[in-house]
């Protein structure tokens, strides 16, 4: 579904930042794939490259078999509709109601108003926000805003949902509810979920596969149980809390 080959990204500011160093991985269709790493490890950069918000310095990304850097403008827009994205900061349109936020991608596709709103009703039911259709984002809680963002990302029936720390701004109960929603979406709609996080709990609770990224390098990956029960890299141990930074030993 998503294949990444030797992906590197260098940011050229005053100095060069190697945000990604030859990252390769593969996400299968229907999977919930987690990418975990410390702050600054390059997680968001990886997602942003897949979402085409950042141009890779080298390497290739294939989505559904197509190299995304080689698409024409029109193919590109089509592809973007097959890939939904949600962010930690929700990024909703503040001057639009919940209904019109969710309808927004459909509006971009030129779908008629009546059809648009019919689809919005389905999406509102899916994320459990039927009673908030006419509210504005500023009237919602963080968890509700993320639900709106999820509904919006699903409006065009994408095959992939990319999530950049979707629960990092939420309390633990709300986090649980959002993760359950993502799992439901994966199971009921068959959407492949690619989720970035720095919390091991997120990986434990929903990811079937996980990749660990450390200082721009993908240091280990595999089935979640295996990676978590038998961590091979120090970074994984740190994230698991088995090891701590100060002592490099046991965290007990």
């Amino acid at each position, binding site marked *: 579904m998503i294949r990444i080959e030797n992906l590197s990204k260098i940011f050229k500011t005053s100095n060069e930042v190697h945000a990604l160093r030859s990252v390769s991985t593969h996400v299968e269709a229907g999977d919930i794939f987690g990418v975990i790493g410390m702050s600054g490890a390059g997680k968001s950069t990886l997602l942003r490259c897949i979402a085409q918000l950042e141009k890779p310095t080298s390497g290739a990304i294939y989505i559904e078999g197509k190299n995304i850097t080689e698409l024409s403008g029109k193919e590109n827009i089509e592809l973007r509709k097959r890939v939904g994205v949600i962010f930690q900061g929700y990024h*909703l*349109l503040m*001057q639009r109601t919940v209904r019109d936020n969710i309808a927004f991608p459909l509006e*971009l*596709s030129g779908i008629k108003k009546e059809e648009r709103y019919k689809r919005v009703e389905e999406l509102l039911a899916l994320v459990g926000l039927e009673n908030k259709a006419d509210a504005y984002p500023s009237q919602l809680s963080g968890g509700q805003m993320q639900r709106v963002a999820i509904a919006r990302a699903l409006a065009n029936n994408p095959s992939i949902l990319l999530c950049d720390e979707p629960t990092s701004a939420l309390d633990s109960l709300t986090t649980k509810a959002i993760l359950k929603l993502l799992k439901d979406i994966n199971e009921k709609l068959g959407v492949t979920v690619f989720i970035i996080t720095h919390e091991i709990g997120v990986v434990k609770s929903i990811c079937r596969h996980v990749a660990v990224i450390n200082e721009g390098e993908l240091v280990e990956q595999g089935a979640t149980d295996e990676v978590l029960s038998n961590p091979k890299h120090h970074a994984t141990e740190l994230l698991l809390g088995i090891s701590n930074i100060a002592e490099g030993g046991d965290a007990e």
Partner: protein
Amino acid sequence: MMEFFMEYKDMLFEGSYETLLMTFASTIFAYIIGLPLGVTMVITDAHGISPQKTLNTVLGTIINIGRSIPFVILIVAVIPLTRFIVGKAIGPVAAIVPLTIAAAPFVARMVETALQEVDPGVVEAAKTMGATNAQIALKVLLPEAVPSLIRGFSITTITLIGYSAMAGAFGAGGLGDIAIRYGHHRYQADIMWVTVVLIVVIVQAIQMCFELAAKKIDKRNK
């Protein structure tokens, strides 16, 4: 008091009307020029959705030059253009030309600032949905900036009331003209003060209306 009012009311009404005409007409024309200019500045900015360094620098320079020319000089400098467009260089309609030219670059900057306040994350989200640049400008940047744009519109209008009074010194008519003719040339301070009060009232009314509208329309703090 009553006599004073009866004697000068027609003149003061006419002056107020001319001031409002000059102000609103030039505000609208200034937006016709300045709004697309401001949007283009934001879009072609290095961090914009379609960076174009040369175009951005050229437009930015034109805007800066426009903004730095003192208005009194501008009025005189554009007289040939005013004659060409309006057919004469005197009167409130003629004053619309220099007022528009003075305000357009100001409007461009105001629009630019308003659009820059829009959360870049929302623009990115729209990109991930396959929005074209035109759709981002028309469906994200402008609508999200509306409250801020309304406040900018109010500031522009008020600034132009001040400018229109200055244009009054050059025969543009309006309340500024009256203040100068009676207050300065004929030492009738009472009339001058009445025009000042009228201008203050107009400015306050405009400010209040637009502020209310901006508050009502803004959905961010509800």
